[in-house]
């Protein structure tokens, strides 16, 4: 692909709101995960909850969109002056020429879970203050972002589980390349809810311990929540980074387990390299999907070795943020761009004992380094794989 300018980006996660808070936490090796309850959930687990979501208010005109997911989305739009950057793009290109492509897995399903506790005792009906289109529907977060930013171009939600907000970079890049739009707001928003907490628990993929990616005794993932956004433009005076390549593939293997050799994952990585027109050796750092489930890390390790060998420094940042599911691709794209901007490879947290079976060059501690090209992996249920390559701004 022709390199595409990332004129601005931001991220809000359990590490804090905005780029500075995120970089500080990554440099300090601080995790945002805590062993605490969420809502009425009676599971003994660690979560990466974002501070301040409950107190966040939506503008009165968007009151019907009120739910945890859209509150978190708004926190993302407000961080680092991101909405102001979008306003400049809207002014320059026109509101019809700016697309919105958001990844989420569960959107505002928490709102529906809560509404089901308040069904009419006689009729069973949902309460009158429940707004399906604005909160429950998978598209609701993109509708909210589009309205909050006063954009009128193409918009869609990509919902491919945990690869969702990596894949949106591809949607936007294709439409810009075809001249259908000039700029795009891409990103991911996913918020804590009962469906995913009890769901991953039912699959025995939720760790009772803090998640420990690449550890010999890893027991599963810790769930987090996040909003991450990037503004892509067909050109920009001072881009913060360049989107260089997008690779997408399917496993075609199993709904909830990765291909054991990571064949689909490797294909996504190769696709991203081919799209960027670079050899594996050109990549300086890889942000792993690294969920800390036994099977996922093992399969990803094999895929990384198949594509990059054992040379490439890599780490999972999910020990810091938790697994933010549909937002993970966007969060880790932001971390990849922060790594480029700051010349810093974040270390993977919480690892006590390396798994000898995993042979990738995993970083336990952060490391300063001049980086030119970095990659980020995102894989999801249904066998959905994506890999992004970002390049440093000249």
């Amino acid at each position, binding site marked *: 692909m022709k390199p595409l300018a990332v004129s601005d980006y931001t991220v809000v996660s359990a590490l804090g709101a905005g780029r500075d808070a995120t970089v500080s936490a990554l440099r300090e090796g601080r995790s945002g995960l805590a062993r605490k309850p969420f809502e009425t959930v009676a599971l003994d687990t660690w979560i990466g909850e974002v501070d301040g979501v409950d107190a966040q208010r939506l503008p009165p005109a968007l009151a019907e969109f009120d739910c945890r997911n859209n509150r978190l989305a708004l926190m993302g739009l407000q961080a680092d002056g991101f909405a102001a950057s979008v306003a400049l793009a809207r002014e320059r290109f026109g509101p019809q020429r700016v697309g919105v492509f958001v990844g989420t897995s569960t959107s505002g399903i928490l709102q529906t879970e809560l509404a089901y506790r308040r069904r009419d005792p006689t009729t069973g009906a949902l309460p009158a203050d429940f707004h399906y289109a604005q909160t429950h529907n*998978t*598209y609701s977060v993109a509708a909210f972002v589009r309205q909050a930013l006063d954009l009128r171009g193409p918009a869609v939600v990509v919902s*491919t589980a945990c690869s969702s907000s990596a894949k949106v970079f591809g949607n936007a890049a*294709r439409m810009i390349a075809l001249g259908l739009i000039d700029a795009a707001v891409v990103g991911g928003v996913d918020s804590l809810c009962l469906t995913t907490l009890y769901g991953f628990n039912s699959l025995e993929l939720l760790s009772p311990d803090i998640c420990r990616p690449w550890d010999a005794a890893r027991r599963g993932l810790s769930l987090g929540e996040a909003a991450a956004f990037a503004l892509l433009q067909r050109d920009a005076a001072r881009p913060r980074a360049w989107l260089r390549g997008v690779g997408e593939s*399917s*496993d075609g293997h199993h*709904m909830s387990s990765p291909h054991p050799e990571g064949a689909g994952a490797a294909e996504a990585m190769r696709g991203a390299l081919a799209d960027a027109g670079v050899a594996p050796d050109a990549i300086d750092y890889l942000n792993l999907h690294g969920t800390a489930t036994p099977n996922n890390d093992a399969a990803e390790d094999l895929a990384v070795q198949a594509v990059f060998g054992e040379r490439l420094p890599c780490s999972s940042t999910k020990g810091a943020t938790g697994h933010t599911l549909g937002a993970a691709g966007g969060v880790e794209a932001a971390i990849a761009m922060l790594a480029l901007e700051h010349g810093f490879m974040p270390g993977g947290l919480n690892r006590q004992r390396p798994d000898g079976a995993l042979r990738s060059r995993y970083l336990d501690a952060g490391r300063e380094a001049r980086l030119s090209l970095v990659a980020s992996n995102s894989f999801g249920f*249904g066998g959905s794989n994506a890999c992004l390559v970002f390049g440093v701004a000249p």
Partner: protein
Amino acid sequence: MITVDVAGIGLLGPGLADWASGQVALRDPAGWLHVPTPLPAPMRLPPAERRRAGAIVRVSLAVADQACAQAGIDPAGLATVFTASSGDAANCHALCESLATAERAVSPTRFTNSVHNAAAGYWHIATASRAPSTSLCAHDASFGAGLLEAAAQCVALARPVLLVAADVPYPEPLHGVRPLPDAFGVALLLTPTLSSANGALQLRLGLVEAAPSPCGHDGLDALTRQMPAARGLPLLQALARGAPSELVIDYLSPLGLAVELRT
């Protein structure tokens, strides 16, 4: 404007049992009768999964198979764009109902099937396809969003792309806030124009601020309004008639998709 060929079509909806019979009804809607959408068993899936397959998987795989069979394309290497307004609606209700009880007993299968890309996952497993796949939602505009994305991929990546748009009704109480009366599915197998044979159906797509075109028949236009996947019916009607035409497909009002059909 972006240009693609239509190499295969799938259709399933009320009184529209498949594309072969449905195109007859679309050409001359006077013969269309409203009977409930049949939900064929997905023969591509192993027996256990076939029995358990939810309505969204049944509809999606049925129309996908029709389009591939018509085009004579092996689905193993085929990129896909799935688009749905609601996903597995009955499964979603069952999960919310369980989570509202004290026990909160969630079945692993229910949780796995709750992902919006479940139908795409089953299709790619059944066809052993490692080709890229995406799953989209744009509420009422889901068909238009899927068509735009599938055509964009087809042109930008210069490869065939299978579009699968499907919706299934919610049970109560979600039906009360999102009344989708029946199941509906549309599949379009889009191919790059350069590879087309003579006589191909060619679509030129662009964005336009205009109201969507009707089918011109009360019953069909009611379906079009009531089910997001059926917003593609005016396009299928034009394809069934096979004559050059220009129409607007519903998208994010006031934004529509301008479609020019060339034959």
